[in-house]
């Protein structure tokens, strides 16, 4: 794990139930009881316990709930799971009660979802003038700018599009089973480089008043050392891989809806199921919500101005 000292410590909580239970989420389970139940628990739960233990070491035993200065509330991939304005009000109130700052995370969206997103943003702007909104959609950036909503835009990690793959190793690109051994050194050197390093890219967003962006703690590491005008959030330990508005969990239970259940009603199947691929790469991967996530406990070298550490105790879906 990388050095998290001198970073603003933040916790990502995807839903209002999590907000209410945030303190217990950040408390390790009693060890004896955890050991007895561990055979029956999903990997996510084991990762939560392991990551809390690693954080305890990294912070010399500090209480993680107390350590957290800011909460990232929301999720990035599914507009159908968008919270209501009432949830936002509740989250703002809970964060205040905890003594934490709050950044609102909103998902990318289709035409179907834009009116709801806009009303949530307008509500948040009134409730928390100048508050941070973590945005993963160019259209939503436009909505905020055109309507002069009184919020501060942060680019979400889905807009920081360095390649990642559960098959990557420490010396990527590497596959656990099938890739040849002779990957070129040139590709290895380039796979941790980001588009933010291009001045035209960072300048473009700077001119829109945006100077913070999210980034996953990737297994091959991330090299932002030459980026100017941006500071970064680093997310750990759940890495976003891919997602789609054609929700695979929604389609899985009904072959008629199939692989592209865009027109089907959402039955919130994501609150009941997760899906695993038939095999695993070097890093554990799973579909939760409408996205594929992978667990990376030990990322590669993270070079650059990473001023915030975003801890994900649970898969943020």
């Amino acid at each position, binding site marked *: 794990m990388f050095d998290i000292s001198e970073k603003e410590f933040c916790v990502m909580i995807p839903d209002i139930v999590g907000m209410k239970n945030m303190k*217990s989420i950040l408390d390790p389970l009693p060890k004896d009881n*955890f050991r*007895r139940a561990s055979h*029956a628990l999903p990997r996510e*739960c084991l990762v939560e316990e392991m990551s809390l233990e690693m954080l305890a070491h990294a912070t010399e035993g500090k209480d993680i709930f107390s350590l957290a200065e800011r909460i990232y509330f929301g999720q990035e991939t599914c507009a159908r799971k968008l919270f209501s304005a009432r949830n936002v009000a509740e989250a703002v109130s809970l964060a205040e009660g905890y003594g934490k700052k709050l950044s609102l995370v909103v998902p*990318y*969206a*289709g*035409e*179907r979802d*834009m009116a709801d997103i806009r009303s949530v943003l307008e509500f948040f702007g009134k409730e928390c003038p100048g508050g941070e909104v973590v945005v*993963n*959609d*160019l*259209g939503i950036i*436009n909505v905020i700018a055109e309507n002069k909503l009184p919020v501060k835009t942060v680019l979400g990690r*889905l807009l920081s*599009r*360095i390649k*990642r*793959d559960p*098959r990557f190793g420490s010396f990527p*690109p590497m*596959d656990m089973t*099938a890739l040849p051994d002779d990957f070129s050194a*040139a*590709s*290895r050197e*380039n796979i941790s480089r*980001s*588009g933010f390093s*291009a001045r*035209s*890219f960072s300048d*473009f967003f700077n001119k829109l008043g945006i100077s913070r962006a999210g980034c996953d703690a990737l297994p091959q590491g991330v090299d932002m050392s030459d980026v100017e005008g941006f500071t970064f959030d680093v997310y750990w330990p759940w890495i*976003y*891989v*891919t*997602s*789609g*508005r*054609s929700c*695979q969990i929604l389609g*899985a*239970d009904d*072959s*008629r*809806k*199939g*692989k*592209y259940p*865009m027109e*089907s009603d959402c039955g919130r199947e994501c*609150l*009941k*199921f997760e*899906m695993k*691929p*038939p095999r695993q790469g070097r890093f554990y991967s799973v579909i939760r919500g409408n996205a*594929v996530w992978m667990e990376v406990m030990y990322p590669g070298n993270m070079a650059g101005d990473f001023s915030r550490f975003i801890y994900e105790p649970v898969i943020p879906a």
Partner: protein
Amino acid sequence: MDVVVGINGLTTDDEIKPLVEAGAEEFYMGYIPEYWSGRFGWEIAPNRRPYHEYNYLSLESLSAAKDSVKRFGKKALLAVNEHEYPPERMSEAVRMVRECVSLGFDAVIISNIALALEIREAGIDVPFHISIGGLVNNYEAVKFYKKHIPGIRRFILPRDLTVREIRSFALKSKDDDISLEAFGVGDPCAWSDGYCLAWHSAGIAPFCSWFFTGDRKLTDLRSFFDWRDKIRSGDISFVDSVEPIKARAKFGGFKPSSERDDFLADIVRVCGLCAIPLFKKWGIDAIKVPARGGEKRDAVIDLVTRAMAAESPEECKALIGSEEFCAGSRCYYNYPSEKDV
């Protein structure tokens, strides 16, 4: 309404003619020159497709393919649609675009705002088509691009839009000087291209394909969630009683049982034909037949062309001629009809 089709580095002059005869109007292609692969390795592509056979590897072969397309009076498009370009890749991408535009390409397909800005900064005046990698899931994103990038001619709509959403794009674009392109048949990926950050390796299948083939394990988490909620509210007595999680049934699927079925399963693969009459009525300008190259492309283009001439979704379903193929997991748009939208 145009049919847009991809060709690859193996497509010969002779193979372009039947595609044109079947109805293809626009051809897109990729290019990985030696100055790119020599510097960044063969695994990093300028267009999200590092497979060498997908791309032309020399300016001469690319130019010859473009000439073939132009001989038939059709349009040639160059895909330079990687999601991100660090500065060293950016400069080579701009170099590549400059080279190709001088050959007479009609447009460049891009996904990255900074690349578009740098192309304009370099004084290159070529129309842009915004790729599905360009994150245009809603019309506000169209407005965003229009505001900041000059010279965009077309937006290619992601696969994962609903037909209602596509109609909304069509209605809103009436007063804007842009064209819209939607998917017709052929790309089996269910993820959102712009938001898919997984590796498209030249050595193996894309990682995401793991979730579309084989025995996917669907797991019921409800007993775990119940347990977790209780334990988080302080009731740790449940720690011993959490139920082991159980696997559920697999997806259903289309099982080919004839030569025609094999064509549908392996060549057409997935399909949105039945939406094409609506797209035409709403003013969608082009239908994409994705993937570059492959077998029996003329037959696929022919299907799309005939769907463009059809009056209803039912006529399009008849072109497919398989209730089973149309019954679920191969269908993009779930049989839209006018009353549904």
